[in-house]
């Protein structure tokens, strides 16, 4: 028997759904109040992108950079790593991604986010709103305590998904590089949490390909627009 074929993903998931949810609850309680700040930052980010695009080029990567660093330290390193051996490595990857955003903020064009304001399609709107604003509703809507709600810039899943959504609308060529870590995280986390039957895993698994396809489609459009006479 090929030993590796005998492994299933669930063999690597070393905690239960209850323990995961309780960790989110404890984290939310530990940093009570920061959820509001995180939501305000998300609103600010969208507002700036729509109204002050030049400013957004620098402000968005600063917010994302600080958010990724915060998640790396406060959740992955201090808390999640206690119950998940992979989280330590994830914390390093999140910290590097955060640092990359901060470095990018120093460039004039930053991440050059261009949200299609007036003509924003409902799909594009949903892709951005889900991780930034509606992710916290998943827990209470699926029978978990509201205290187990996950927020963008607070826990890794909505942070990674939200970052992908924003990068999908970014014009910087570096976006493809910046999308690697959040894509890998979303795929890994969705798979792990799926084995635990956690509803958020279904949302993450469904949203990830949509965001990636959107990014590719927008990328192609941008390329063809640039090359048209």
């Amino acid at each position, binding site marked *: 028997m090929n030993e590796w074929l005998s492994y299933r993903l669930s063999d690597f998931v070393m905690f239960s759904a209850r323990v995961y949810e309780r960790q989110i609850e404890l984290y939310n309680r530990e940093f009570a109040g920061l959820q509001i700040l995180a939501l305000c930052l998300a609103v600010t980010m969208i507002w700036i992108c729509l109204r002050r695009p030049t400013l957004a080029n620098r402000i968005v990567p600063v917010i994302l950079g600080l958010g990724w660093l915060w998640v790396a330290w406060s959740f992955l390193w201090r*808390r999640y790593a206690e119950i998940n*051996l992979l989280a330590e490595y994830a914390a390093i990857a999140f910290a590097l991604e955060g640092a990359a955003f901060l470095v990018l903020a120093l460039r004039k064009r930053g991440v050059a986010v261009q949200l299609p304001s007036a003509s924003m399609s409902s799909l594009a709107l949903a892709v951005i709103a889900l991780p930034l604003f509606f992710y916290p509703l998943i827990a209470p809507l699926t029978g978990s305590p509201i205290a187990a709600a996950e927020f963008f810039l607070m826990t890794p899943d909505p942070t990674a998904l939200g970052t992908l959504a924003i990068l999908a609308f970014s014009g910087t060529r570096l976006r493809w590089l910046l999308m690697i870590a959040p894509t890998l995280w979303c795929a890994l986390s969705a798979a792990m949490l799926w084995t635990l039957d956690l509803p958020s895993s279904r949302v993450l698994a469904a949203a990830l390909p949509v965001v990636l396809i959107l990014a590719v489609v927008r990328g192609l459009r941008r390329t063809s627009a640039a090359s048209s006479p």
Partner: protein
Amino acid sequence: MKTNRRDLLKLGVAAGAAALGPLRVGAQETSGPLMRSIPSSDVRIPAVGLGSWITFNVGDDPVLLASCADVMEAFFAAGGTVIDSSPMYGSSQATIGYGLEKLNRSDDVFAADKVWTRDSDAGASQLELSRSRWGVPDFDLAQVHNLLAWEPHLETLFAMKQAGSLLHVGITTSHGRRHGEMEAIMGSQPIDFVQLTYNPVDREAEERLLPMARERGIAVLVNRPFRGGSLADHLAREPLPDWATDIGASSWAQIILKYILSHSAVTCAIPATTRIDHVQENVRAASDPLPDEAMRQRIADHIRSV
């Protein structure tokens, strides 16, 4: 000074240690769970222990830590002593340490842990870190987890045993993996224990490893008795067969455990649980009557058919 089982074993007084038993309740063997001897040391341990993979990995959550300690309390009260963990199990070792301290049971537990590192030189330091998390003076059993870098680690563990800081040495596998290599090690190394997966569905160990363990006087710990819970969950939908009462079983979990314990090579099964009623039910399964050969076949056939 209180002389306990560990002190006696260190002095090489195996018979004295065996007589003292591994735990307070061990003194009343007649009313407690079925006991089995470790062939190499004659130490007797209850035939059902407690695993800690997933179930005890609860981080620093005070509510879940307390509920794990409650499970441990029920386990000790039922007469259990053997607890198994590994550095691979996240915060499980610290949870066990928390429970042992809270219940004041550090001297009573039969502490079984593992070495799990590719680094050949890190075995001793990893075991020391694990020991400090458990808060026990020494480990009763240290096993090389999944045979990872087993050669240097066994060397380290044998040296520790020689020096008196470890009582038994073992190796582990699970899911039926690497049985050929297990067999080779069992045939060539003076190990006290093997740990492997065995239950009415996963019976590969019956072919070579269990007979070999019996032949060579190696104790056997059985992991994944309920296939990680999926077997117990699956059977929970089925009515309990009439013949369950013939072997004194009142649940599917007890039928499974009694099947496992009725193999003469098996020393102890180590199911994991988060529930007090389950831990009590599991330890109670370590009791006579155990199924005979015909009943064993019937159990395996029946479970396969559902």
